């Protein structure tokens, strides 16, 4: 067994341990406080834990299937996220072909470029080609009503849901000395740290939260939750240094950066939801809301994490 797969096994065992503990706590809380399902907070907690099991198993299966599995999983995530995003933006009939191109050409091409390991074109395909070609497709229909808003929103949707999200599997393409065949663990590091940071902010907030940190954007986020969550997720990131090419201090520093990006990314995406008058992006994940509700912090931290690692660690 290679070092990568034994590390991965240890990691999966650890995650299963955490989930079993969470499920046990959720069960006890339900028995004590919500035996007939009357306590909404606890029912939601248990729905979230159940959804976590499904997400962990899906990501685990993708890792087992290798590069193609990871690309297909994140390709699907981009598709579903884009569907949630475009549902909420201004579109008119004149955008029909541009939108069809976004879903059926841009998404597959972006992930194909990762498969083909064409980093140069991968990194500019959406910011340059899609950016210039999509408005051209829209303008051909001659509808100028709210034109700038329409093309800007579609580009934003593509940047967030496809370009940024695709930087998670892009970690597989990095060539890091003495880290051969272990890149999938970088994805695990990023996803675990960001998601644990979200969970820990929620837990710290529920336990000790007093002071709202952004009442206009996200009434459930508190200063106590933010500080506790970021510190504990940073420490966990440092403790996970053995699955990364980093030293413990470097791992902690990177974890700190990605949790901060994740937190502020969550605020940005909340602001968009408020602007559009919705509570959740969708209903794909029971208890969590839409896929973007779960993915927002990963999407904001992935490109930064990718470029830091690429600049300082890869060849």
């Amino acid at each position, binding site marked *: 067994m290679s070092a990568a797969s034994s590390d991965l096994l240890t990691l999966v065992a650890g995650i299963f341990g955490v989930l079993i503990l969470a499920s046990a706590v959720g069960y006890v809380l339900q028995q004590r406080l919500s035996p007939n399902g009357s306590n909404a907070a606890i029912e939601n907690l248990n729905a979230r834990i159940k959804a976590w099991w499904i997400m962990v198993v899906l990501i685990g299966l993708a890792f087992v299937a290798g590069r193609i599995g990871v690309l297909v999983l994140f390709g699907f995530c981009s598709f579903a996220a884009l*569907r*949630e995003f475009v*549902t*909420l933006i201004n*579109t008119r009939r004149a955008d029909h072909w541009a939108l*069809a191109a976004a*879903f059926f050409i841009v998404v597959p091409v972006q992930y194909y470029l990762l498969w083909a390991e064409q980093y140069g074109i991968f990194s500019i395909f959406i910011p340059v080609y899609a950016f210039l070609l999509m408005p051209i497709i829209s303008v051909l229909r001659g509808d100028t009503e709210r034109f700038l808003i329409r093309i800007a929103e579609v580009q934003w949707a593509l940047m967030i849901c496809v370009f940024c999200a695709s930087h998670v599997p892009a970690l597989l393409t990095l060539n890091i000395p003495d880290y051969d065949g272990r890149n999938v663990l970088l994805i695990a590091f990023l996803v675990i740290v960001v998601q644990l940071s979200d969970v820990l902010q929620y837990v710290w907030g529920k336990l000790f939260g007093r002071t709202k940190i952004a009442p206009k954007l996200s009434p459930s986020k508190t200063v106590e939750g933010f500080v506790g969550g970021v510190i504990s997720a940073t420490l966990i990131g440092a403790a996970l240094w053995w699955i990364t090419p980093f030293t413990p201090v470097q791992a902690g520093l990177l974890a700190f950066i990605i949790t901060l990006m994740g937190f502020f990314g969550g605020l940005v995406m909340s602001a968009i939801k408020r602007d*559009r008058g919705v509570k959740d992006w969708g*209903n*794909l994940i029971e208890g969590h809301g839409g896929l973007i509700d779960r993915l927002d912090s990963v999407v904001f931290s992935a490109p930064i994490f990718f470029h830091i690692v690429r600049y300082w660690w890869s060849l």
Partner: protein
Amino acid sequence: MKGFITRAVAAAIVVFARAVTAVRAIWPEEGLPSRPCIYFANHSSHGDFVLVWTVLPPRLRHHARPVAGAEYWLKSRLNRFIGRDVFNAVLIARERDKRTEDPVEQMASAIDAGSSLILFPEGTRNQSDARLLPFKSGIFHLVAARPDIDLVPVWINNLNRVMPKGEIVPIPLICTVTFGSALRLAPDEAKDAFLERMQTALLALSPKPAGSGE
């Protein structure tokens, strides 16, 4: 054999509709009537009845027959196969002078045979900026003939953006189908009052416009 093919095609259409629209149904608190009833919905796309049909629980779906224009659904062999064989639509002639059967009688006899109906009382696809076109009177005459039947308002949201008129490629967008509480014809209720009440009940299910901003 034909039964098998139509069932397979129906299943494929359900899977496709869900893959494109991730459609979600919102039910009334008391659930749907278990007896045959009339689902009446807003109409903006050829896919409307497919979406209602997709979200209905299989038990109810098998008895639900869309009411559709014969001109369109008998136009080609494919349309005929989908409309008549797969969805078992009650096909009514739109143009008065081409009618050989009375549409109200056709619908009433489908109900008598134990089917539910999926009905679009606007009569045609709504291409206007208004949220709802005025209802045609057919639904009133049908209910006057079968006054015990439950009427369930159904609001289909967003499907017109998935596939606007004249486009062939659907855009994946999230759709919702909201079912309201069952209504009945009140004793001695006049036609206009009844239609008005049904339109209000249906509009009450529509979310405030988000996104499309049209």
